[in-house]
């Protein structure tokens, strides 16, 4: 079975303007729309396209989180994933523990490719892909904007500060995907019905054999400092004047 494993994280929807709790213990997630991390959606779309080209037999979506994470996995199944695994926990799981859980799943599921988002838009950590590749002792390519699979290898183009970098890597490997890799498909209603019948296994951290644990202790979460209200200018002369006043031109 040529299997692709895709990580799917449940996050606050990217259109939501988040608010910090008054006691500085976190951000408000009650009553807030939750979605698949947008980068993970792109990873899933890429996995589906690879399968549709006949280069893979199965797309497995995996997630770690509370019971409600099943909603995002059902969406992944509706998009076209064949089955899903939820490692269910209410605990905060740090990046290293996430990578270890994924590594355990990789050992049991034996994918030839793991596709992950380059970062989650809540914690903005961007650690899982390189960490999993390290634990698995396999190649990594982060921020991929193009992926070609052939002959047990992947040729990937990465977005880097200097421009674009192309690597050739042996499979199996871990790829993290960037925004411009593809545009994820919309889920159609019949697919949502079909997804209800697809297998979604729920495992505990004990089943996986990784002890839970946040990596770090949260001291506080605060809103960023606000900028002072600026001025509006009505024409270019005023604009140049304002720039001159600040010594900028």
């Amino acid at each position, binding site marked *: 079975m040529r299997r692709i494993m895709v990580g799917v994280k449940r996050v*606050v929807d*990217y259109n939501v*303007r*988040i608010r910090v709790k008054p006691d500085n213990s976190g*951000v408000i997630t009650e009553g807030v729309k939750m979605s698949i991390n947008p980068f993970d959606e792109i990873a899933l779309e890429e996995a589906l396209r690879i399968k549709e080209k006949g280069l893979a037999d199965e797309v497995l979506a995996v997630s770690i989180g509370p019971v409600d994470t099943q909603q995002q996995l059902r969406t992944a199944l509706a998009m076209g994933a064949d089955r899903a695994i939820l490692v269910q926990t209410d605990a905060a799981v*740090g*990046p*290293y523990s996430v*990578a270890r859980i994924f590594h355990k799943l990789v050992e049991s599921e034996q994918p030839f490719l793991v596709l992950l988002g*380059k*970062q989650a*838009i809540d914690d*903005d*950590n*961007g*650690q*899982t892909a*390189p960490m999993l*590749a*390290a634990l698995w002792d396999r*190649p*990594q*390519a*982060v*921020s991929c*904007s193009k992926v070609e699979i052939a002959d047990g290898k992947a040729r990937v183009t*990465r*977005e*880097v*500060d*200097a421009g*674009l970098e192309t*690597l*050739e*890597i*042996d499979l199996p490997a871990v790829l993290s995907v*960037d*925004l*411009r890799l593809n545009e994820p498909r919309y889920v159609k209603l019949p697919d949502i019905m079909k997804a209800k019948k697809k297998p979604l296994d729920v495992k505990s951290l004990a089943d996986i054999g990784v002890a839970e644990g946040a990596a*770090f*202790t*949260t*001291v506080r*979460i*605060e*809103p*960023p400092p606000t*900028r002072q209200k*600026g*001025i*509006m*200018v009505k024409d*270019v002369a*005023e*604009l*140049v004047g*304002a*720039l001159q006043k*600040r010594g*900028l031109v």
Partner: protein
Amino acid sequence: MSRILIVAEHDGATLNASTLKCVTCAAKIPGASIDVAVLAANGAAVAAQASAIAGVSKVLVIENPANVEPLAAVLAPQIAKAAGGYTHVFGPSTTFGKDVLPRVAALLGVSQVSDVMAVEGPHRFKRPIYAGNALLTIDVPADAKVVATVRVASFESAATGGSASVEKFDAGVALPSHTRFVSRTAATTGRPDLQSASRVVAGGRALGSADNFKIIYSLADKLGAAVGASRAAVDAGYVPNDLQVGQTGKIIAPELYIGIGISGAIQHMTGIKDARTIVAINKDGEAPIFEAADIGMVGDLFTIVPELEKALGG
């Protein structure tokens, strides 16, 4: 006492300014000793530049023909080996550091602290989450090695004029051959580097075409500024990806940022909120960028931009 190892970013010949920002960040830890690791095929030139950074005690040169390109799978085991005697390993939160440092952290068996924007103690750091819409302060366990990437826009460059000792370090670890460099296409524009420029002129979707983007380049050249862009402009193909500013692009902190035809999605704003002065030009007076702008002007960019360029004289 904190012993900090900084992984140098370079292109084989020149040390990247991001390394100097990492030194400034590391120096915020009281009493820290700071060393820099240069991994290269031939590291002498870069090591000489690193040894001139004020505050650096020692430069470790880790040479191997396999280090000619910065491949994370190749560099990480060598860095993890060199990290043995250190309490902290820092690298820049650039695409280089984001690739390499988490791999190092996993080899060392710890989570990484991503995008450090402030140091509050040897094990206490502040970092942005939710695209900078919240700031998280965390404590790393006192007995754990700290592996961190440094948000370069939050720190000034360290001064030069130092004279650190330079030592070779033999990592003596087996390196994988499963990852091979093929090519890199670097846009050479002759303009200032976006990441480190003191002035940036950025354009958005409202420019409408790659051809129309010329007025952005022209204004930038008049100001001696780097050119940036919103994700929408990059996605539309007006400019290459390395000009993208924002949560998933570059985080910049210029003295002057001029956003033209950019509405100001939160993902873009997170990339510019450290700019000293934000100027916004947009035809939609309700555009969110005006909430953060120091100077705002509502109007047609195709009229305003050439007029502004003319008004700046020559």
